[in-house]
């Protein structure tokens, strides 16, 4: 059996419709042509950027990203700059900002660069969604106390006893903590708080 030299040849020999698989996998991917036009988005990228196919890639970037992105793109198309992994900020359809980490490589036909194939890396699960550098949510002193007790595993009744409050008041504080952290459950709130450095696990020291 002939030894294949490169991985992409090997993938070809395996057969199968890899393109169709790329359409459906939950990792956002895109193809740009040489002019920077978005030629293809998979389902996952389309969910992030509806109606973007056919537009220029700068149309989906946050305004402050457009100028540097254009420059890098031009240099890369001229083969004068390597394709490095980089971070950028997308402008979502509702005008919001969505930070992504991008891994992109030149798309070649023979030796000619005909565009860019890119993968967005920051599809994070709910607990990880908040980046470390995101500002810590502003919680009141009471809410911090509730968060600390939640982290220690206390239930509503126990928190009420400890804080000298009614269970209904404690529930209100818990609701506010969840809303402040963007969490859907008490467990998620505590995990998010740990990620943001608002809480420490037992035995862990602050740094």
């Amino acid at each position, binding site marked *: 059996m002939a030894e294949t030299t*490169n*991985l*992409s040849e*090997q*993938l*070809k020999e*395996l*057969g*199968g*419709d*890899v*393109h*169709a*698989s*790329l*359409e*459906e*996998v*939950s*990792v956002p991917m895109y*193809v740009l*042509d040489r002019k920077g036009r978005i*030629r*293809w988005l998979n389902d996952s990228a389309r969910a992030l950027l509806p109606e973007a196919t056919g537009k220029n890639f700068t149309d989906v970037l946050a305004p402050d990203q457009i100028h540097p992105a254009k420059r890098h793109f031009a240099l890369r198309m001229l083969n004068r700059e390597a394709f490095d*992994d980089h971070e950028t900020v997308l402008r979502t359809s509702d005008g919001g900002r969505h930070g992504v980490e991008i*891994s*992109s*490589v*030149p*798309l*070649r*036909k023979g030796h000619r660069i*005909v*565009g860019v*194939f*890119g*993968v967005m*890396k920051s*599809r*994070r*699960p*709910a*607990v*990880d969604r908040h980046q470390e550098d995101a500002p810590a949510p502003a919680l009141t002193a009471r809410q911090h106390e509730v968060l600390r007790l*939640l*982290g220690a*595993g206390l*239930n509503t009744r126990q928190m009420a006893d400890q804080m000298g409050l009614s269970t209904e008041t404690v529930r209100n504080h818990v609701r506010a903590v969840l809303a402040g952290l963007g*969490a*859907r*459950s*008490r*467990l*998620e709130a*505590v*995990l*998010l708080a740990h990620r943001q450095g608002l809480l420490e*696990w*037992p*035995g862990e020291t602050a740094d």
Partner: protein
Amino acid sequence: MSGLDAVRGDIRSGLERVSVPAYVIDTTGVIRWVNEAAKRLVGDVRGRQFTSVVAPEETRRAREHFARKIAGTEKVTDAPVVLVDSEGGRVSAEISSVPLFEGHRCIGVFGQVADVDDAPPEPVPPHLTPRQVEVLRLLQRGRSTDQIAGELHLSAETVRNHVRHLLRALGVHTRLEAVAASRGELLMR
């Protein structure tokens, strides 16, 4: 039919070089292809059973997802998994995988590592059953009962039962305590 078919340029070659790990497993569970990034993450594991790259306590769940995709009953799996690299190191990752078709025939599974957690996976208490470990892993990621039920293909009631047994096994009373206990000194009691 994919819009990619009309794109000029060699997508497979791009896929080989992006820094997002990708792989193909055939219908017998043998890893047939990995890209460069996957090699960097777990080594060149071509020719090995995919279960050898998955942490022992998670192989059952991984096998179930795999079987459902080969059988055509599951289209996309997005699931956390603990991978084991060639030196036995453990990496916590989120993987998205889909069937690979040739015509109408499923010839394997294509997957990508959507995210790698920088922190090493939390330790697993030794006395738990495989199901309890699966449930604990998902609780550690903040999943709710319904989400766990969805990922493990169980009813919410069954998940609640597993959680109850898990809490008892860990000697704790709440899910939150279970997560804290599984990673902190409480485990050493």
